């Protein structure tokens, strides 16, 4: 089954593009245009914003290498020896969609997420920030700074959000550093949870903007794109399903948690840690009061 994310489809329809291969892995080819990083995934991977999912098997077996040039039109993506035809795709909506919500179970869901991280999560990243598992050298170093950052968010301390966030972005192991995954989870989840309390999403986006302001060169290109997408609530298919489960008390919760955790090495776990902290912030009445207080804006 071939799937394209809606934001990428809109992007392709605007113009013809030149691009080059940024990086290539078994399950992913990343393509860099003038202004966007686009992912071509195989069906093993969870579809994400600005991506296409194919039935192709191991991409590393294709005769494609880093730096190869390619052309993109609204009908095809053309590599030197390989073409992707764009007219027979299903469209996946990468935008935030919340149809109904139930605020009464959020605390329980937070507990369940913590349990899932303890039981299934990869502890090589930042999982021990929210579980009782042993800390590692990454969490030991960053813990204090991270909690200072959380405080600025909780109390809507706009003067200091970016200052604190700058001391976190790009931190940790992984191609997308662990803290970037965590912040992504936090930002996406705040946008989704805001729907529960009928906060205007722009208010949350303003917080998120402060987090990622001056992002350039602070982290890898792939991670930069991820953070930008996350700041406006765009996330992968399974992350979206999980967030909807949290809001609607659906029965696929366990399945979706495991799918999120299975991403990358510790990326999925770190993202889930971010979702956990997003919940802890949203459940804090000081935060909710701060968001409602118009004079902060």
């Amino acid at each position: 089954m071939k799937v394209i994310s809606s934001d990428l489809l809109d992007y392709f329809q605007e113009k013809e593009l030149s691009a080059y291969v940024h990086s290539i892995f078994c399950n992913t080819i990343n393509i860099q245009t003038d202004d966007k990083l686009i992912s071509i995934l195989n069906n093993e991977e969870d579809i994400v914003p600005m991506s296409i999912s194919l039935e192709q098997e191991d991409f590393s077996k294709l005769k494609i290498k880093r730096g190869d040039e390619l052309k993109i039109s609204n009908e095809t993506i053309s590599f030197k020896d390989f073409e992707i035809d764009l007219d027979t795709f299903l469209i996946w909506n990468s935008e935030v969609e919340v149809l109904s919500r139930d605020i009464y179970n959020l605390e329980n869901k937070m507990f369940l997420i913590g349990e899932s991280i303890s039981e299934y999560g990869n502890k090589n990243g930042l999982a021990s920030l929210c579980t009782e598992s042993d800390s590692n050298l990454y969490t030991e170093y960053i813990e204090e700074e991270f909690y200072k950052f959380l405080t600025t968010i909780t109390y809507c301390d706009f003067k200091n959000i970016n200052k604190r966030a700058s001391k976190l972005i790009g931190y940790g192991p992984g191609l997308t550093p662990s803290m970037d995954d965590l912040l992504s989870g936090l930002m996406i989840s705040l946008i989704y949870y805001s729907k529960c309390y009928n906060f205007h999403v722009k208010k949350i986006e303003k917080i998120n903007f402060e987090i990622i302001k001056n992002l350039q060169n602070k982290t890898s290109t792939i991670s930069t794109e991820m953070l930008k997408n996350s700041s406006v609530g765009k996330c992968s298919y399974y992350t979206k399903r999980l967030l909807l489960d949290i809001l609607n008390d659906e029965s696929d919760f366990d399945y979706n948690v495991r799918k999120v955790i299975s991403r990358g090495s510790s990326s999925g776990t770190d993202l889930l840690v971010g979702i956990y902290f997003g919940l802890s912030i949203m459940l804090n009445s000081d935060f909710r009061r701060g968001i409602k207080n118009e004079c902060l804006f």
Partner: protein
Amino acid sequence: MNVYSKVIKNTYYDSVVLMLISKEIKEIEDIENVIVAMGTDMNINLAKSLSIYTEELEDISSNDLFISFSSKEDVFNKVIDKVDELLNKKAKTANDTYHHKTLLTEIKNNPSSNLVFISVAGEYAYEQAKIAIDNNKNVMMFSDNVSVEHERKLKELAVSKGLLMMGPDCGTCIINNKPLGFSNSVRKGPIGIIGSSGTGIQEVSVLIDYLGSGVSQVIGTGGRDMKKEIGGLTTIQSLKLLLEDKKTEVIVIISKKPDEEVIKKVLALVKLTSKKILVSFIDSSPELVESYNVKYTSSLEEAAYVAVSYIDKNIFYEELEYDIKGLINDESKRHNNNQNNLLGLFVGGTLATEADRIIRKDNVLYSNVYKSEYFVNKLEKNKNIILDLGDDEFTNGKAHPMIDPSFRTSLIKSIDESVMVLIFDIVLGYGSHEDPVSELLPSLKEVMLRFINNDSFLTVITSICGSETDYQDYLSSKERLEDIGVIVLRSNRQVADLANRLLNVKKHKNLDKIFNSDLSVISLGIDTFYNEMKDSDINVSKVNWRPTANGNKKMRDLLAKLKE
């Protein structure tokens, strides 16, 4: 302390590979702090704080990878060689440890596979089995909680494609002498086994091995296959395969409580074969089976003996009379008057069912094996009880007791003093606990000592369902149990039989007492009888009895209900 760094510029490796590199480096001796990460400002700060920053890192960018570490010895070249090795074979390394996330992709990347073993949660198992069968793979499904309807659909599909659908709830197979699931190390030989009961299959296969023969194929069908809703689809298909198989001379079919109409369908296939067919069908009619010219055996042990006797004329079955009289005599002397009951704690469902059937013939027995007025699912005083601890009720959210013996050991510790004999099974082999006896010994010792200190005695009898080549060491397991006074017998049938005889002896003793002691009577009713007994010098006392509620039936019934 030596500090080293290496920078790999503008090259991308996925996080799984980076994690592997980090893990491999940490395992090298004398390595202290290690960072394998992207060259972001924050990660460089971390390197500085850990004192593993070197000048190589000065011009690094966020899109570069770096590796920094400290070590006591000069292992730089060793580490860098390791890193280069891992990076150069990154595709292969990633694939070795990177497992495909979908079955379909794995099937496509592994075209020579011919069986899919499914042990995911039941709600997902059907879909995965369908993918496997659609792609022409045989299936063994350990998962349970699959609906009857789904099981039937999968089996019909598999049959139509000439594939085996073994399960759901299939825990034991041996295909081409390779063990799958819970199974034992047994010889290769000419006896094929088809079974809808896991420990039933195990018991028969280990006894066949004990008798010097072996198995050709062991095919599990799943617990419901011989029920009318499924119609024996996999049993029939397996039987057809074994009838054609040149290496199979004898076929044993095992099932717990098979439905009669399915027995007829299955046995109708064997009319024209020259191969020897026998069955071990717990709770079915011997006459029905024998009407198809098929040998009916009344126990798993008998099935093994009969099967081997078809191959080796020197083997014959009789219910072996081990020094039973001596054993019974010794054991029964030690129980006190308050000990009258049996407790059975089984991890194998079929073994529990077989023991239940034997004990229930002569005794009132409560168990969770059958849903009846004698159903019980916990320990209760003053009752004969057998519990199948592998039943869903006990394993919901927990490991099966064959893997985790802790639940059974806790029950053993709480045995009450009305129990006279404890019987249980030990299952060895693949999938089972690595040393089940060592887990049980402390609780057995504790309870046996408690009984002795309270002037009573607990007879403990077990059999070990295992072969002498199973990795848990059959002989050592037997020895350790015997060292603490446990009676270890060769088969589950023998265990249940001995326990049953002990119960019968006790009942007889209780009866016998009246002939060996002075008569002492309580008279209830007519005074004439009381007076006459008194005149005959019989030790007699009288109860001044009146009906409750002065004979008012309605009031009496009400009082009786209150007592309940």
